[in-house]
């Protein structure tokens, strides 16, 4: 099972997951792109910068 690149949480992939799919970490919400399914590897998904600061 791959681990979140940000918070090390275990990320369960759906059985029918495909390369290129966007998934998010259940603990910290970071989005990843599935680079490969076997072995399961993740990349940071392209993220548009949200305007959130005060």
């Amino acid at each position, binding site marked *: 099972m791959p681990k979140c690149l940000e*918070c*090390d949480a275990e990320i369960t992939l759906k059985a029918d997951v495909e390369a290129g799919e966007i998934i998010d970490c259940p603990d910290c*919400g970071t989005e990843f792109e599935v680079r490969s399914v076997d072995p399961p590897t993740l990349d940071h998904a392209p993220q548009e910068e*949200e305007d959130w600061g005060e």
Partner: protein
Amino acid sequence: MKVSILGASGYVGGELLRLLLDHPEASVAQVTSERLAGKLVTAAHPNLRGRTTLRFSRLGDLAPCDLLFAAMPHGSFAKTFAEVRAIAPRILDMSADFRLRAPDAYRRWYGHDHENPAALGEFVYGIPELHREAIAGATCVTGAGCLATTAILGLLPLFREDVVANREVFIEAKVGSSAAGNKESASSHHPERSGAARSFQPTGHRHTGEIVQELAVHGAPTVHFSATAIELVRGILVTAHVRLAEDLDTKAIWNLYRAAYRDEPFIRIVKETRGVFRYPEPKILAGSNYCDVGFERDPHGDRLVVLAALDNLMKGAAGNGVQAMNVMAGWDERTGLGFPGLHPV
């Protein structure tokens, strides 16, 4: 289980009553207020209209019950403890009177000797996340200070693993107006209090004593505490700064907090990379028993900022009291504490 509340006209007493009225295992026997004796409880707690026709009793009329909550003004319970001791086999004191175990610590933080130092050792510090086993077997349990609870729960995993340089922490707490109770004062007058960002206690806040007592896992910590009143009725946000004794990265700290809090029903680790509520924030916790904990590792050095939030009347007082009651009675800790909080609110 028959439960009574000694001193039920205040905000904490009212919150205890709200929770106990809907608690599947507890039934409310009597609730006292000398000032409002004979009056409907809804006179002080309008949110309970239509939910109860209970009236306030006097202390003197208290009949024996299974568990007695005491939510009296600070200093009063210590005086009445001996008198009420026989009323219930289990006592849960929400006031500050029996929180510090050491008489000299009490003198330092409260500026006078304790009324009843002998009884100090009888009370277990009633935060289940800290002392679950001791609470389960206790007959006398004390609630904790709301600001202390927030700081302690935010920092506890770090002090348990002893990863804080010099065991030193700088804590800045933001707090809502209900923490000062329901007695009006010049500074609580709306035109003066509304929109406040008021440094009411930059130093010397009494809750510091509890933080020092409970974080002394591997040796006495150095706690620098300040408190600021902000535009909130309910809610506390603690922002604490520590320097790490070891070079722990974000993942290591996540795992340290997960290990400490994974099985806790009322603590959520909140540190998200998207959305409006990315870090712990009190607003959405109002009415819930959650303490949300988060952190951010400063990439330019060894500083870790720890964030913690809760509702000062719930996990900071009445909610924690009901949680401790559940532990003492052997019930599921979540019983009667299921409200998740509102959003938007």
